[in-house]
Protein backbone atom coordinates (compact mmCIF):
# COMPACT_ATOMS: atom_id res chain seq x y z
CA UNK A 1 0.00 0.00 0.00
CA UNK A 2 1.15 3.50 -0.87
CA UNK A 3 2.32 5.66 1.95
CA UNK A 4 0.15 8.44 3.28
CA UNK A 5 2.41 11.15 1.94
CA UNK A 6 2.40 9.72 -1.57
CA UNK A 7 -1.36 9.49 -1.73
CA UNK A 8 -1.70 13.01 -0.43
CA UNK A 9 0.61 14.36 -3.11
CA UNK A 10 -1.27 12.48 -5.78
CA UNK A 11 -4.59 13.91 -4.58
CA UNK A 12 -3.19 17.43 -4.63
CA UNK A 13 -1.93 16.87 -8.16
CA UNK A 14 -5.22 15.58 -9.50
CA UNK A 15 -7.04 18.44 -7.83
CA UNK A 16 -4.85 20.91 -9.67
CA UNK A 17 -5.51 19.15 -12.94
CA UNK A 18 -9.21 19.31 -12.23
CA UNK A 19 -8.91 23.02 -11.61
CA UNK A 20 -7.28 23.50 -14.99
CA UNK A 21 -9.73 21.36 -16.89
CA UNK A 22 -12.73 23.00 -15.29
CA UNK A 23 -11.27 26.44 -16.06
CA UNK A 24 -10.76 25.38 -19.67
CA UNK A 25 -14.29 24.15 -19.78
CA UNK A 26 -15.57 27.50 -18.61
CA UNK A 27 -13.45 29.36 -21.13
CA UNK A 28 -14.73 27.08 -23.88
CA UNK A 29 -18.29 27.66 -22.73
CA UNK A 30 -18.01 31.41 -22.95
CA UNK A 31 -16.22 31.26 -26.31
CA UNK A 32 -18.85 28.87 -27.54
CA UNK A 33 -21.49 31.42 -26.77
CA UNK A 34 -19.62 34.05 -28.76
CA UNK A 35 -19.11 31.70 -31.70
CA UNK A 36 -22.75 30.69 -31.66
CA UNK A 37 -23.83 34.31 -31.70
CA UNK A 38 -21.61 34.99 -34.68
CA UNK A 39 -23.07 31.99 -36.45
CA UNK A 40 -26.60 33.13 -35.76
CA UNK A 41 -25.79 36.66 -36.86
CA UNK A 42 -24.49 35.37 -40.15
CA UNK A 43 -27.48 33.19 -40.91
CA UNK A 44 -29.88 35.90 -42.16
CA UNK A 45 -27.24 37.14 -44.57
CA UNK A 46 -26.44 33.68 -45.88
CA UNK A 47 -30.11 32.76 -46.23
CA UNK A 48 -30.99 35.94 -48.08
CA UNK A 49 -27.98 35.55 -50.28
CA UNK A 50 -28.92 32.02 -51.22
CA UNK A 51 -32.45 33.20 -51.92
CA UNK A 52 -31.38 36.01 -54.22
CA UNK A 53 -28.72 33.92 -55.91
CA UNK A 54 -31.18 31.11 -56.50
CA UNK A 55 -33.64 33.35 -58.27
CA UNK A 56 -30.84 34.89 -60.29
CA UNK A 57 -29.24 31.61 -61.31
CA UNK A 58 -32.56 30.45 -62.64
CA UNK A 59 -32.59 33.42 -64.93
CA UNK A 60 -29.04 33.59 -66.12
CA UNK A 61 -28.94 30.01 -67.31
CA UNK A 62 -26.04 27.79 -68.24
CA UNK A 63 -22.50 28.83 -68.90
CA UNK A 64 -22.94 32.21 -67.30
CA UNK A 65 -19.72 32.02 -65.38
CA UNK A 66 -16.50 30.02 -65.55
CA UNK A 67 -16.95 29.22 -61.88
CA UNK A 68 -19.92 27.03 -62.72
CA UNK A 69 -18.25 24.95 -65.39
CA UNK A 70 -16.99 21.53 -64.47
CA UNK A 71 -13.65 20.63 -66.02
CA UNK A 72 -13.60 17.64 -68.28
CA UNK A 73 -10.37 16.30 -66.89
CA UNK A 74 -9.76 16.68 -63.22
CA UNK A 75 -6.04 16.56 -62.63
CA UNK A 76 -5.49 19.00 -59.82
CA UNK A 77 -7.59 18.72 -56.74
CA UNK A 78 -7.30 21.22 -53.96
CA UNK A 79 -8.50 20.51 -50.44
CA UNK A 80 -9.21 23.25 -47.93
CA UNK A 81 -9.06 21.72 -44.48
CA UNK A 82 -10.43 23.54 -41.47
CA UNK A 83 -9.21 22.41 -38.08
CA UNK A 84 -8.59 24.06 -34.74
CA UNK A 85 -5.31 25.59 -33.65
CA UNK A 86 -5.26 23.93 -30.30
CA UNK A 87 -5.87 20.44 -29.08
CA UNK A 88 -7.59 19.17 -25.96
CA UNK A 89 -10.88 18.93 -27.74
CA UNK A 90 -11.41 15.21 -27.98
CA UNK A 91 -11.54 13.60 -31.39
CA UNK A 92 -12.57 16.80 -33.13
CA UNK A 93 -9.46 17.35 -35.24
CA UNK A 94 -8.76 13.68 -35.74
CA UNK A 95 -12.13 13.14 -37.33
CA UNK A 96 -11.68 16.17 -39.59
CA UNK A 97 -8.29 14.97 -40.72
CA UNK A 98 -9.63 11.47 -41.31
CA UNK A 99 -12.35 12.94 -43.47
CA UNK A 100 -9.78 14.83 -45.51
CA UNK A 101 -7.67 11.70 -45.87
CA UNK A 102 -10.67 9.74 -47.06
CA UNK A 103 -11.43 12.42 -49.62
CA UNK A 104 -7.86 12.46 -50.86
CA UNK A 105 -7.77 8.68 -51.08
CA UNK A 106 -10.87 8.77 -53.20
CA UNK A 107 -9.53 11.47 -55.52
CA UNK A 108 -5.90 10.53 -55.80
CA UNK A 109 -4.73 8.70 -58.87
CA UNK A 110 -1.75 8.37 -61.15
CA UNK A 111 -2.11 11.73 -62.75
CA UNK A 112 -4.04 13.59 -60.11
CA UNK A 113 -2.20 16.09 -58.01
CA UNK A 114 -3.45 17.01 -54.59
CA UNK A 115 -2.67 20.27 -52.86
CA UNK A 116 -3.85 21.68 -49.56
CA UNK A 117 -4.83 24.87 -47.85
CA UNK A 118 -4.99 24.71 -44.10
CA UNK A 119 -6.86 26.77 -41.60
CA UNK A 120 -5.69 25.78 -38.14
CA UNK A 121 -2.50 24.41 -36.69
CA UNK A 122 -3.65 20.83 -36.18
CA UNK A 123 -4.42 20.29 -39.83
CA UNK A 124 -1.26 22.06 -40.83
CA UNK A 125 0.89 19.80 -38.69
CA UNK A 126 -0.77 16.84 -40.32
CA UNK A 127 -0.25 18.33 -43.79
CA UNK A 128 3.44 18.84 -43.12
CA UNK A 129 3.83 15.16 -42.42
CA UNK A 130 1.79 14.15 -45.47
CA UNK A 131 3.21 14.00 -48.97
CA UNK A 132 1.02 16.72 -50.38
CA UNK A 133 2.16 20.27 -50.93
CA UNK A 134 0.53 22.89 -48.78
CA UNK A 135 -0.25 26.07 -50.66
CA UNK A 136 -1.47 28.24 -47.83
CA UNK A 137 -1.85 28.15 -44.11
CA UNK A 138 -3.91 30.40 -41.90
CA UNK A 139 -3.35 30.21 -38.17
CA UNK A 140 -5.16 32.03 -35.42
CA UNK A 141 -8.44 32.07 -37.30
CA UNK A 142 -10.51 29.08 -36.26
CA UNK A 143 -11.67 29.41 -32.70
CA UNK A 144 -10.62 33.03 -32.45
CA UNK A 145 -12.64 36.05 -33.45
CA UNK A 146 -12.43 36.75 -37.14
CA UNK A 147 -14.51 38.67 -39.63
CA UNK A 148 -15.66 38.21 -43.18
CA UNK A 149 -12.50 39.65 -44.70
CA UNK A 150 -10.49 36.52 -43.91
CA UNK A 151 -12.99 34.46 -45.86
CA UNK A 152 -12.98 36.85 -48.80
CA UNK A 153 -9.17 37.00 -48.99
CA UNK A 154 -8.88 33.24 -48.74
CA UNK A 155 -11.76 32.69 -51.13
CA UNK A 156 -10.34 35.16 -53.61
CA UNK A 157 -7.08 33.22 -53.72
CA UNK A 158 -8.89 29.97 -54.34
CA UNK A 159 -10.97 31.47 -57.12
CA UNK A 160 -7.95 33.02 -58.80
CA UNK A 161 -6.07 29.74 -58.78
CA UNK A 162 -9.14 27.95 -60.07
CA UNK A 163 -9.64 30.39 -62.91
CA UNK A 164 -5.96 30.20 -63.87
CA UNK A 165 -6.22 26.44 -64.05
CA UNK A 166 -4.04 25.67 -61.07
CA UNK A 167 -6.89 23.71 -59.55
CA UNK A 168 -9.62 21.79 -61.32
CA UNK A 169 -11.67 21.13 -58.25
CA UNK A 170 -11.70 22.65 -54.81
CA UNK A 171 -13.18 20.97 -51.77
CA UNK A 172 -13.79 22.27 -48.31
CA UNK A 173 -13.57 19.96 -45.30
CA UNK A 174 -15.12 21.45 -42.18
CA UNK A 175 -17.06 20.45 -39.11
CA UNK A 176 -20.76 20.99 -39.28
CA UNK A 177 -22.14 22.06 -35.95
CA UNK A 178 -25.18 19.92 -35.31
CA UNK A 179 -25.53 20.27 -31.58
CA UNK A 180 -23.46 20.74 -28.46
CA UNK A 181 -22.60 17.07 -28.43
CA UNK A 182 -22.33 16.46 -32.12
CA UNK A 183 -20.05 17.93 -34.77
CA UNK A 184 -19.95 16.18 -38.06
CA UNK A 185 -17.02 16.49 -40.45
CA UNK A 186 -18.37 17.18 -43.92
CA UNK A 187 -16.99 17.66 -47.40
CA UNK A 188 -18.31 20.39 -49.58
CA UNK A 189 -17.42 21.17 -53.14
CA UNK A 190 -16.46 24.83 -53.43
CA UNK A 191 -15.36 25.00 -57.06
CA UNK A 192 -16.66 24.55 -59.63
CA UNK A 193 -19.77 25.75 -57.93
CA UNK A 194 -22.29 22.92 -57.89
CA UNK A 195 -25.54 23.70 -59.70
CA UNK A 196 -27.48 26.14 -57.59
CA UNK A 197 -30.81 24.91 -56.49
CA UNK A 198 -33.57 27.35 -56.15
CA UNK A 199 -33.58 28.00 -52.47
CA UNK A 200 -37.18 27.53 -51.67
CA UNK A 201 -36.95 24.38 -49.64
CA UNK A 202 -35.75 26.13 -46.53
CA UNK A 203 -37.18 29.56 -47.06
CA UNK A 204 -39.80 29.97 -44.41
CA UNK A 205 -41.77 32.65 -46.18
CA UNK A 206 -43.88 30.92 -48.75
CA UNK A 207 -43.49 33.49 -51.44
CA UNK A 208 -41.92 31.93 -54.50
CA UNK A 209 -40.19 34.11 -57.00
CA UNK A 210 -42.58 34.03 -59.85
CA UNK A 211 -42.09 37.54 -61.03
CA UNK A 212 -39.19 38.30 -63.32
CA UNK A 213 -36.60 40.52 -61.78
CA UNK A 214 -35.33 43.55 -63.53
CA UNK A 215 -31.59 43.28 -63.22
CA UNK A 216 -29.16 46.10 -63.20
CA UNK A 217 -26.59 45.57 -64.69
CA UNK A 218 -27.55 42.43 -66.63
CA UNK A 219 -28.39 39.16 -64.92
CA UNK A 220 -25.16 37.61 -66.23
CA UNK A 221 -23.02 40.40 -64.85
CA UNK A 222 -24.77 40.29 -61.53
CA UNK A 223 -24.35 36.55 -61.32
CA UNK A 224 -20.69 36.97 -62.14
CA UNK A 225 -20.38 39.32 -59.22
CA UNK A 226 -22.41 37.26 -56.84
CA UNK A 227 -20.90 33.84 -57.45
CA UNK A 228 -17.44 34.56 -56.05
CA UNK A 229 -19.04 35.99 -52.95
CA UNK A 230 -20.99 32.81 -52.65
CA UNK A 231 -17.69 30.95 -52.33
CA UNK A 232 -16.58 33.36 -49.61
CA UNK A 233 -19.86 32.80 -47.85
CA UNK A 234 -19.41 29.03 -47.90
CA UNK A 235 -15.90 29.40 -46.58
CA UNK A 236 -17.00 31.82 -43.89
CA UNK A 237 -19.79 29.54 -42.85
CA UNK A 238 -17.35 26.65 -42.67
CA UNK A 239 -15.08 28.72 -40.47
CA UNK A 240 -17.90 29.75 -38.19
CA UNK A 241 -19.23 26.24 -37.84
CA UNK A 242 -15.80 24.76 -37.25
CA UNK A 243 -15.03 27.38 -34.59
CA UNK A 244 -18.29 26.74 -32.83
CA UNK A 245 -17.71 23.01 -33.10
CA UNK A 246 -14.22 23.32 -31.68
CA UNK A 247 -15.46 25.10 -28.58
CA UNK A 248 -18.32 22.66 -28.13
CA UNK A 249 -15.96 19.70 -28.52
CA UNK A 250 -13.51 21.19 -26.06
CA UNK A 251 -16.27 21.92 -23.64
CA UNK A 252 -17.47 18.35 -23.55
CA UNK A 253 -13.92 16.96 -23.54
CA UNK A 254 -13.04 19.16 -20.58
CA UNK A 255 -16.27 18.30 -18.86
CA UNK A 256 -15.39 14.62 -19.13
CA UNK A 257 -11.88 15.29 -17.92
CA UNK A 258 -13.18 17.22 -14.92
CA UNK A 259 -15.55 14.39 -14.07
CA UNK A 260 -12.77 11.83 -14.44
CA UNK A 261 -10.61 13.92 -12.09
CA UNK A 262 -13.40 14.01 -9.52
CA UNK A 263 -13.83 10.24 -9.71
CA UNK A 264 -10.11 9.77 -9.33
CA UNK A 265 -10.00 12.04 -6.30
CA UNK A 266 -12.81 10.08 -4.65
CA UNK A 267 -10.94 6.84 -5.22
CA UNK A 268 -7.67 8.28 -3.98
CA UNK A 269 -9.35 9.76 -0.94
CA UNK A 270 -10.63 6.31 -0.10
CA UNK A 271 -7.15 4.84 -0.41
CA UNK A 272 -5.84 7.65 1.75
CA UNK A 273 -8.44 7.09 4.45
CA UNK A 274 -7.72 3.40 4.53
CA UNK A 275 -4.01 3.95 4.81
CA UNK A 276 -4.51 6.49 7.57
CA UNK A 277 -6.80 4.17 9.48
CA UNK A 278 -4.31 1.33 9.11
CA UNK A 279 -1.58 3.55 10.54
CA UNK A 280 -3.78 4.56 13.49
CA UNK A 281 -4.68 0.96 14.19
CA UNK A 282 -1.05 -0.04 14.10
CA UNK A 283 -0.15 2.78 16.51
CA UNK A 284 -2.95 1.78 18.88
CA UNK A 285 -1.80 -1.82 18.84
CA UNK A 286 1.65 -0.62 19.83
CA UNK A 287 0.38 1.53 22.69
CA UNK A 288 -1.98 -1.14 23.99
CA UNK A 289 0.75 -3.76 23.71
CA UNK A 290 3.17 -1.47 25.59
CA UNK A 291 0.66 -0.75 28.36
CA UNK A 292 -0.09 -4.45 28.79
CA UNK A 293 3.61 -5.17 29.05
CA UNK A 294 4.08 -2.49 31.79
CA UNK A 295 1.19 -3.83 33.83
CA UNK A 296 3.09 -7.02 34.01
Amino acid sequence: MATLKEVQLKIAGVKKTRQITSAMKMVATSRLRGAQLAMEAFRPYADKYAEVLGSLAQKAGEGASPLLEAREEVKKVHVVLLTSDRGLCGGFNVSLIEKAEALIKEKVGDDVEISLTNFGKRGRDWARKSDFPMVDEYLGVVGASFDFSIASTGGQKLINSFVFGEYDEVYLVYAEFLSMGKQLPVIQQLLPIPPIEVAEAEAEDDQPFQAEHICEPSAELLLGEMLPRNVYIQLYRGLLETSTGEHAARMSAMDNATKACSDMITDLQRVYNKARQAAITADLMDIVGGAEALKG
Partner: protein
Amino acid sequence: MADTIRLEIVTPGRRVVSEPVQIVMAPGSEGEFGVLDGHTPFLTSLKVGMARFKDEAGKECGVFINGGFAEALADRVTILAESAERRRDIDVTRAKASLARAEKRLDGARVDVDETRAKAALARAIHRISTVESR
Protein backbone atom coordinates in the same frame (compact mmCIF):
# COMPACT_ATOMS: atom_id res chain seq x y z
CA MET B 1 -50.35 57.78 -45.42
CA ALA B 2 -48.69 55.57 -47.96
CA ASP B 3 -48.25 51.90 -47.21
CA THR B 4 -44.96 50.80 -45.86
CA ILE B 5 -42.48 48.24 -47.14
CA ARG B 6 -40.17 46.12 -45.10
CA LEU B 7 -36.52 47.09 -45.25
CA GLU B 8 -33.83 44.65 -44.27
CA ILE B 9 -30.17 45.52 -44.32
CA VAL B 10 -28.01 42.55 -43.46
CA THR B 11 -24.25 42.09 -43.38
CA PRO B 12 -22.24 38.96 -42.66
CA GLY B 13 -21.80 40.18 -39.10
CA ARG B 14 -25.30 41.24 -38.18
CA ARG B 15 -28.70 42.52 -39.16
CA VAL B 16 -28.33 46.27 -39.28
CA VAL B 17 -31.87 47.36 -40.09
CA SER B 18 -35.11 45.45 -40.10
CA GLU B 19 -38.18 47.65 -39.98
CA PRO B 20 -41.11 48.89 -42.01
CA VAL B 21 -40.30 52.06 -43.90
CA GLN B 22 -42.04 54.47 -46.24
CA ILE B 23 -39.35 54.86 -48.86
CA VAL B 24 -35.83 53.61 -49.50
CA MET B 25 -33.17 55.30 -51.59
CA ALA B 26 -30.06 53.27 -52.35
CA PRO B 27 -26.85 53.79 -54.35
CA GLY B 28 -27.20 51.31 -57.21
CA SER B 29 -24.20 50.64 -59.41
CA GLU B 30 -26.09 52.15 -62.34
CA GLY B 31 -27.36 55.10 -60.37
CA GLU B 32 -29.31 55.89 -57.28
CA PHE B 33 -32.78 54.43 -57.10
CA GLY B 34 -35.79 54.76 -54.87
CA VAL B 35 -38.21 52.07 -53.82
CA LEU B 36 -41.78 52.57 -52.68
CA ASP B 37 -44.43 50.06 -51.81
CA GLY B 38 -45.44 47.90 -54.78
CA HIS B 39 -42.15 48.12 -56.64
CA THR B 40 -41.59 45.72 -59.49
CA PRO B 41 -39.04 42.96 -58.68
CA PHE B 42 -35.64 44.45 -59.09
CA LEU B 43 -32.13 43.27 -58.43
CA THR B 44 -28.98 45.33 -58.56
CA SER B 45 -25.49 45.62 -57.22
CA LEU B 46 -24.65 48.55 -54.99
CA LYS B 47 -21.82 51.00 -54.89
CA VAL B 48 -20.19 52.33 -51.79
CA GLY B 49 -22.48 55.07 -50.60
CA MET B 50 -25.40 55.98 -48.45
CA ALA B 51 -28.81 54.38 -48.34
CA ARG B 52 -31.55 56.58 -46.98
CA PHE B 53 -34.95 55.64 -45.76
CA LYS B 54 -37.92 57.23 -44.04
CA ASP B 55 -39.15 55.21 -41.12
CA GLU B 56 -42.80 54.83 -40.21
CA ALA B 57 -42.84 58.08 -38.32
CA GLY B 58 -41.40 59.90 -41.33
CA LYS B 59 -37.99 60.39 -39.80
CA GLU B 60 -35.18 60.21 -42.30
CA CYS B 61 -32.31 57.87 -41.54
CA GLY B 62 -29.01 57.28 -43.32
CA VAL B 63 -27.02 54.10 -43.48
CA PHE B 64 -23.54 53.82 -44.87
CA ILE B 65 -23.32 50.90 -47.31
CA ASN B 66 -19.98 49.46 -48.24
CA GLY B 67 -21.07 47.91 -51.53
CA GLY B 68 -23.23 44.85 -51.95
CA PHE B 69 -26.50 43.84 -53.55
CA ALA B 70 -30.10 44.92 -53.23
CA GLU B 71 -33.26 43.11 -54.05
CA ALA B 72 -36.58 44.90 -54.21
CA LEU B 73 -39.87 43.01 -54.18
CA ALA B 74 -43.38 44.33 -54.00
CA ASP B 75 -43.46 44.34 -50.22
CA ARG B 76 -39.85 44.33 -49.13
CA VAL B 77 -36.36 45.48 -49.89
CA THR B 78 -33.34 43.44 -48.92
CA ILE B 79 -29.90 44.96 -48.93
CA LEU B 80 -27.02 42.52 -48.67
CA ALA B 81 -24.12 44.75 -47.76
CA GLU B 82 -20.49 43.92 -47.32
CA SER B 83 -20.70 46.08 -44.25
CA ALA B 84 -23.16 48.74 -43.17
CA GLU B 85 -23.31 51.28 -40.41
CA ARG B 86 -26.15 53.42 -39.22
CA ARG B 87 -25.45 57.09 -38.97
CA ARG B 88 -25.17 57.00 -35.19
CA ASP B 89 -22.64 54.15 -35.29
CA ILE B 90 -20.16 55.83 -37.59
CA ASP B 91 -16.87 56.84 -36.06
CA VAL B 92 -16.26 60.20 -37.71
CA THR B 93 -12.81 60.73 -36.30
CA ARG B 94 -11.69 57.40 -37.66
CA ALA B 95 -13.27 58.12 -41.04
CA LYS B 96 -11.56 61.50 -41.21
CA ALA B 97 -8.23 59.97 -40.28
CA SER B 98 -8.57 57.34 -42.97
CA LEU B 99 -9.62 60.03 -45.45
CA ALA B 100 -6.44 61.95 -44.73
CA ARG B 101 -4.40 58.77 -44.97
CA ALA B 102 -5.91 57.80 -48.31
CA GLU B 103 -5.43 61.27 -49.74
CA LYS B 104 -1.83 61.31 -48.69
CA ARG B 105 -1.26 57.96 -50.27
CA LEU B 106 -2.80 59.05 -53.56
CA ASP B 107 -0.98 62.39 -53.55
CA GLY B 108 2.45 60.97 -53.20
CA ALA B 109 3.73 59.89 -56.60
CA ARG B 110 5.14 56.70 -55.15
CA VAL B 111 4.96 53.60 -57.27
CA ASP B 112 4.45 51.09 -54.54
CA VAL B 113 1.04 52.46 -53.64
CA ASP B 114 -1.87 50.17 -54.34
CA GLU B 115 -4.00 52.72 -56.11
CA THR B 116 -7.23 50.75 -56.27
CA ARG B 117 -7.10 50.03 -52.60
CA ALA B 118 -6.32 53.61 -51.69
CA LYS B 119 -9.15 54.84 -53.91
CA ALA B 120 -11.58 52.40 -52.33
CA ALA B 121 -10.51 53.56 -48.88
CA LEU B 122 -10.98 57.16 -50.00
CA ALA B 123 -14.48 56.46 -51.30
CA ARG B 124 -15.43 54.70 -48.10
CA ALA B 125 -14.16 57.54 -45.95
CA ILE B 126 -15.91 60.20 -48.03
CA HIS B 127 -19.24 58.42 -47.94
CA ARG B 128 -18.99 57.69 -44.24
CA ILE B 129 -18.42 61.33 -43.52
CA SER B 130 -21.16 62.51 -45.84
CA THR B 131 -23.58 60.00 -44.29
CA VAL B 132 -22.99 61.65 -40.94
CA GLU B 133 -23.04 65.21 -42.17
CA SER B 134 -26.06 65.06 -44.48
CA ARG B 135 -28.83 65.52 -42.04
